[in-house]
């Protein structure tokens, strides 16, 4: 990546998008996916959900099993025949498609298709802010909230500004500052299992920072981080619990 790669060219607001929900949303947090779909519809976009989607292939990819990853990713490539944008409610899966599919398929007959799909893939909060220009009306109670932006939304998708931009639209929500906001929560997929102690120390620190921020509640842009931080909050019995940012926005505004 060079500095000019960081300048994103957003498409005009389309009539339709493909929704790639990710496996964690499908299995653990379906309400985050539903909320994302409803927010897109609220913005006047028709959402197409290819029923045969499973997983982007990131877990084996980052564990080194590239052939297994490619096998699953190949199936996903076939799901998006029309030229519509593909929106993903998670930076890590969006990043997998957008940043890693080109490398995964380089030198194969699917290389061009992978490139093309990678270019069309957007992280959902980024898409809502910069393509849909979503306007939100807050109907909720006053709330102090902290945001944890996933490392992949931040670094692979360059979407770190989108979450705050959405939350700042909510009149009754105070977005509070936290210590070391850009630091990883320690999830990292199999890292949390292979290096459980280090990952555990990271999530302890992350939750501590969120608690110390004075927030009553935190939201995240990725289900992986949510499962990690909120799982720790539940384990610890912390009063500060988390939610996917999409669920939070939907609850308050739709």
């Amino acid at each position: 990546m060079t500095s000019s790669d960081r300048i994103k060219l957003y498409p005009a607001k389309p009539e339709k998008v493909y929704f790639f929900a990710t496996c964690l949303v499908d299995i653990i947090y379906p309400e985050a996916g539903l909320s994302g779909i409803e927010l897109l519809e609220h913005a006047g976009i028709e959402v197409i959900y290819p029923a045969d989607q499973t997983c982007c292939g990131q877990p084996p990819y980052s564990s080194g099993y590239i052939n297994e990853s490619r096998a699953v990713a190949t199936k996903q490539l076939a799901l998006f025949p029309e030229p519509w944008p593909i929106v993903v409610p998670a930076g890590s899966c969006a990043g997998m498609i957008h940043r890693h599919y080109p490398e995964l398929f380089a030198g194969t007959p699917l290389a061009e298709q992978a490139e093309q799909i990678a270019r069309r893939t957007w992280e959902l909060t980024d898409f809502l802010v910069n393509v849909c220009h979503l306007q939100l009306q807050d109907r909720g109670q006053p709330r102090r909230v902290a945001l944890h932006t996933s490392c992949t939304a931040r670094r692979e998708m360059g979407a770190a500004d989108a979450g705050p931009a959405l939350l700042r639209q909510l009149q009754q929500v105070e977005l509070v500052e936290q210590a070391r906001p850009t630091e990883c929560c320690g999830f990292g997929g199999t890292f949390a299992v292979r290096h459980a102690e280090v990952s555990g120390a990271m999530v302890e620190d992350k939750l501590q920072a969120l608690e110390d921020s004075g927030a009553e509640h935190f939201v995240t842009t990725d289900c992986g981080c949510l499962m990690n931080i909120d799982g720790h909050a539940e384990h610890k019995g912390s009063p500060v619990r988390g939610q996917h940012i999409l669920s939070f926005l939907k609850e308050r505004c739709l």
Partner: protein
Amino acid sequence: MSSQEAVRHFHPRARDALNNPRIRQNFRRAMDGLMQKRATALQDHDTEALRDLGAAIRQRALSQLPDLLEQLEANCTRNGIQVHWAQDGDQACQIITDICQQQGARSVIKGKSMVSEEMELNHHLAEVGITALESDLGEYIVQLAEETPSHIIMPAIHKNTEEISELLHDKTGTQRSQDVDYLTASARAQMRQAFQRADVGLSGANFAIAETGTLCLVENEGNGRMSTTVPPCHIAVTGIEKVVQHLADVPPLLSLLTRSATGQHITTYLNMITGPRKAEEQDGPQAVHLVLVDNGRSDIYQDDQLLDTLRCIRCGACMNHCPVYTRVGGHTYGTTYPGPIGKILMPHLLGLEDTRDLPSASSLCGACGEVCPVRIPIPELLVRLRREAVDGDSSRPSVVRGHGVKRHWTEVGVWRAWAWLNSHPRCYRAALRLVMALRFLSPRRLGGWTRYRKAPRPAARSLHQHLLQRNRSSS
């Protein structure tokens, strides 16, 4: 303990470090400070453009590495610098020992050199009765404590002032003090004599300029200048990848190096060494040697992706920003180079057998890649090494020693089954329905995960099912 044995036990050492509040605090504080300094130092710069330039300079140098090394040798020789080539650390130690013995040397004063750490030079010299004294303050502290550096720029960063004061008191009789200036002055006084007595000065080199045959040494304490000018013989030892093509390549790299490393706009000293003392000159060493060490680097060079590893200018920013390094500290890695750069470099120097736990010791958060001044895609290289470790890519031959060391049939089986399921959507959906129907049976304990967290529970219905129902009710 030899370095090889030391590397293997990442997990128990990580556990110890995590349970050591002093280590946790010392690293957290220091890394927070360094991150802040870097950010401030780069405020008035177009950081991304400068990083582009840095990356391009290093890439160009590597793209013509063999030619540039020949050019460097020719120009150094013309300048009176004697150039030596070492295949590995042992050979480099032998070359240096030979030079010392030819000089009849009993003592060597050392400026900071990570390559000399890599080849355990002090140990080799001691075996033939030559004492080596570290003159970089951090290295000096580490040497007194009989430890190894825990950071490539700040070797003693794992110690706080109190610990250093205690150490100096025990080893040199310095009065206990919390005054950093006092402690520094006392160490300086000890070194001053050593500089005058030393028969050989040894240093590293940050850049070696091919077109002029010049060695650049970047430092803050002046000990580098002393080591390279006071003793009658100077030996510089560095890795073959440190070569750059032009003199004009140095200023941007230097800007990046000092800002990324310590947040300085410029270091106190920049030494540019272009040969021994000339006939009409009053001072400087009579002989200058350059030892260029390969030690696995040319293996990395064979692979067009792994090659990026060699761009490194050893600024340490990747470790300063690494959430893993910040928590476990440098010694946990058990390698000369710790942190993210260590994780991508050490497997080549030592082989994956001994470094098998390093590539996986990352959440792939990308903080390292984001700050690397020469844009080494560290997370991508970690993934590549994980692939090497599990032999996960059938399409290319491996250049990494210990390829496939972590391949285990159960894991392979799990991923194959996973891939099959996720490639067959109907089966995936059926499996999901089953998991959800039996969600009350979902395990409450999941290895290391549930030591810190509640186990995730499948939802009552998948998104697929929700949407199916939604479609039905709307049609």
